[in-house]
């Protein structure tokens, strides 16, 4: 159906756009910047902050440009006197309700309200200070998320994020009038409600009302402590986004610079979570094949299919709250982060002659839920806390700046050995579809001895930003021991973002699906869109980060997990075989049902 075109003028400049375009979108085409606060490209239109108001000729009221569609002959002024005065008033009003302590605030320099205030250069605040209980309302109950209600500007982005993108709705607008605020159920601490720790709310909060629980001081302390041997592991998604917080454009791979910076910061060894991603594939791939065998050959009815990936801790907590009946479908594999920690403080510690109690494992993650994950009581299989601290990509950027490192001038460096080698299959863990693709590259070859029948091993059907992706691979010419899979159509699904996950889980529960294996990543876009990644985020930015991930994959000499020589070695020397006794001890975990509300 062709769309009508609409002619209008913005600041006396004529423009033609499709019917249904908002004034805000139309103005972007003309490079007229209209300030916004409650608006976000990933979310539905709210139209409550009123910062984006513009004057429309002939109308008595100012129009919220984010919420007003263009109409034929409209004449818009984005900077008339009335608009300027209104904007100033609105920002001043917000400041009067806001705990203005920018110099101490975690978002200092990264705050959208601060930016607006600086654009208008206010001087003395006109209005009366309305901030109540500024010191009493910070919630640090969650290991992942800090919530400071004294900084909240009630844009409701967090509420819409948690509801529309994640279908969790742990946050809501409560009360009305001068008591209106944003809160959890009965204002309980975040740790006591169904918050999954995914941190998507943090990614969209314009001020310092939501930010990660940060552990930068603890990590610096460990680095300075002469008695500690501090090892750092880095996630795949961090290396394609870290640059954004250090002056670079989205989608630039900074792996080598990141390694160099970490070394300069003083970490004893710089290692790679991608190594354990490859390990995860070995364990999880074998687990899947074992379940398939038990289901098809042994006709074991207790086997749970579809099997579901388990490397996304926000997704795991989501399942524990919302679909506890499906917990047995989850792979028992730990995430690469946690497998790393367990191996680091056992296998690796032995190898390099360091006492495990003196080793501190720090991970750099695009994720806030990983902070929750490393604190789970199950994650102590090494005899110690397997992963001591998790830093977000954003925290790392801050620490690099604190260390005075000029990031873009760094030379590329390589990871240390061992636990530093990885395949292209590992790197693509960072984006939606990556775990599935990595698993298929290995599983298919194990079963048939042949490579997956996709050009360059790129399994396109599971890639991209669509909410639920499906693929079907017919298994042909199996090796003798896998003959029970001959002719089987392996049905897989990939989804990202918890709202999509919820829909998929409801389909699975209804029994109408016939998937064998499902990859779920808790964040839109997968880890490259994680709750710990640089802000701002948008689909465009996530796409560019994903492209960088796939480029990194193509550039790797080894593209399949089972060909990673360090992986081969760890099995030979230590683990013996996937799902072996040692693996079960260190690399596998279990889950717990949590209350639904």
């Amino acid at each position, binding site marked *: 159906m062709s769309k009508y075109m609409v002619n209008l003028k913005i600041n006396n400049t004529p423009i033609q756009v499709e019917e249904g375009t908002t004034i805000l979108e139309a103005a972007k085409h003309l490079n007229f910047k209209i300030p916004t606060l409650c608006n976000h490209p990933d979310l539905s239109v709210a139209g409550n902050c009123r910062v984006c108001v513009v004057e429309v000729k002939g109308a008595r009221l100012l129009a919220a440009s984010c919420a007003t569609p263009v109409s034929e002959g409209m004449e818009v002024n984005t900077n008339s006197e009335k608009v300027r005065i209104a904007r100033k008033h609105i920002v001043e009003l917000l400041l009067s309700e806001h705990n203005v302590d920018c110099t101490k605030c975690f978002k200092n320099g990264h705050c959208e309200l601060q930016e607006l205030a600086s654009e208008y250069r206010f001087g003395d605040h006109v209005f009366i200070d*309305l901030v109540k209980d500024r010191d009493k309302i910070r919630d640090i109950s969650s290991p992942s998320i800090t919530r400071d209600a004294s900084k909240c500007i009630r844009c409701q982005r967090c509420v819409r994020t948690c509801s529309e993108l994640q279908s969790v709705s742990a946050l809501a*607008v409560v009360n009305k009038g*001068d008591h209106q605020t944003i809160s959890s159920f009965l204002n309980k601490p975040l740790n006591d409600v169904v918050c999954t720790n995914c941190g998507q709310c943090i990614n969209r909060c314009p001020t310092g009302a939501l930010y990660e629980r940060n552990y930068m001081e603890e990590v610096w302390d460990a680095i300075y402590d002469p008695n500690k041997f501090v090892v750092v592991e880095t996630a795949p998604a961090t290396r394609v986004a870290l640059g954004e917080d250090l002056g670079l454009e989205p989608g630039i791979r900074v792996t080598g610079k990141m390694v160099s910076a970490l070394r300069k910061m003083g970490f004893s060894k710089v290692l790679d979570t991608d190594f354990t991603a490859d390990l995860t594939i070995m364990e999880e791939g074998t687990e899947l094949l074992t379940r398939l065998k038990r289901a098809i050959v042994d006709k074991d009815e207790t086997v749970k299919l579809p099997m579901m990936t388990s490397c996304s801790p926000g997704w795991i907590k989501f399942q524990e709250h919302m679909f506890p009946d499906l917990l047995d479908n989850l792979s028992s594999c730990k995430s690469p982060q946690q497998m790393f920690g367990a191996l680091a403080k056992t296998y690796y510690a032995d190898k390099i002659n360091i006492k495990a109690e003196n080793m501190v494992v720090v991970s750099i993650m695009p994720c806030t839920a990983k902070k929750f994950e490393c604190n789970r009581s199950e994650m102590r299989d090494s005899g110690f806390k397997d992963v001591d601290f998790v830093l977000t990509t954003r925290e790392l950027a801050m620490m690099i700046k604190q260390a005075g490192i000029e990031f873009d001038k760094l030379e590329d460096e390589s990871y240390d050995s061992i636990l530093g080698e990885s395949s292209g299959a590992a790197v693509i863990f960072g984006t939606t579809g990556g775990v599935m693709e990595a698993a298929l590259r290995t599983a298919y070859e194990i079963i048939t001895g042949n490579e997956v029948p996709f050009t360059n091993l790129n399994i396109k059907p599971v890639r991209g930003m669509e909410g639920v992706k499906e693929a079907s691979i017919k298994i042909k010419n199996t090796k003798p021991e896998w003959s029970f899979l001959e002719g089987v159509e392996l049905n897989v699904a990939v989804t990202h973002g918890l709202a999509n996950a919820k829909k998929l889980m409801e389909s699975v529960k209804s029994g109408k699906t016939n998937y064998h294996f499902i990859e779920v990543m808790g964040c839109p876009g997968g880890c490259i869109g994680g709750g710990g990644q640089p802000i701002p985020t948008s689909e465009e930015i996530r796409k560019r980060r994903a492209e960088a991930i796939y480029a990194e994959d193509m550039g790797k000499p080894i593209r399949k997990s089972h060909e990673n020589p360090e992986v081969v070695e760890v099995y030979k020397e230590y683990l013996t075989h996937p799902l072996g006794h040692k693996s079960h001890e260190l690399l596998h975990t279990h889950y717990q049902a949590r209350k639904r509300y």
Partner: protein
Amino acid sequence: MLKEEIPDKMEQKQLKKIDIIFGWDEKCTPIQVVEKTIKKTPESIILDMIDSGLKGRGGAGFPTGLKWKFARNEESDMKYVICNADEGEPGTFKDREILDKVSEKVFAGMAICGYVIGAREGYIYIRGEYNFMLTTLQKKIDIFNQQLQDLKVDFHVFLRSGSGAYVCGEESALFESMEGKRGEPRNKPPYPTVAGYNNKPTVINNVETLVYTSEICRMGPEQFKALGTNNSRGSKVFSVSGDTPIAGIYELELGMSLKAFVDDFGDGDTKSVQVGGASGYCVPRKKFNETIIGFEGIPTGGSMMIFNSSRSMYNVLHDYLEFFTEESCGQCTPCRIGCQQLLKGIEAVKKGERPPSYLDDLKKLTATMKIAAKCGLGQSVANPFTSIVDNFREEIIY
């Protein structure tokens, strides 16, 4: 006061009491009005409605005939008629009385509207503070629904309650509340006749407006047109309270001067009249003569609060600002924070914590609220604030 000039030859009426709303025609009861009206085409009913000049009686004053026409023209599987009985404007109590005494006329108006626009369901959203009326009202609705069924009219009236939120009187907030959500006004466009309740074309009319629609159908538009002025046809029900010996509900012809009103209703010592409730305008004695009660003067939902010389206009303004601060839905910046600033602002000036000139800063703020707030609540706060501060500045400061 309004900035708009009052035209030279504005019609001015004497105060005249009317008996359209509460009168009862035994020969043409409300259900009989429905019966005879649906024999006409929807288009001709709309023409009558437009011709009558009837404008909404809840305070906004939108031409009723046009509203029905817009809704009729929308194509949709479902449409709704909603009676806004959320009457919460301070000083307004006429809708309660109407629903108590002549509810059948309201139902009739709804049924006729349903016929005209193509809606099969009508809802009365009545404020929670009137819960004591629910049982009796439901009984009357049941009887009327049966009568409609007997006439083979495909329209059913339902009853819904609010739970204590003034802002739910705003049409889109009312829809939100009926949909089980917080009563937060929506972005407009789309307007209710395009997407209202359940995002379907909806006509939402005030209780009083619906009575007038059924009365116009009963007696024809001419009788209604004969009353009032060019821009304010007909009569209106007023809720009169405050310093008056005869507080109560009165149906009066539109277009009267405020002086005529005060002459009849004041206690001889009237200092000011708040026209239109907390969100209306405060008119000082010196302006009674030139103020017309009608859409060309001060449009109103009918609330008339009379203050004599013993009253402090500071207290009055403070009361209104406290009301808005509490009742604001809270979603938009200008209203949520602006109301608090106005309230604390006049307190600060009174206590000497801010200079009197701060009132001018606040007036500028209300000018922004008037054009930047998301709904009528925030947009209207400027009215009482500016009219009281301008006309009673000394009482606010000292």
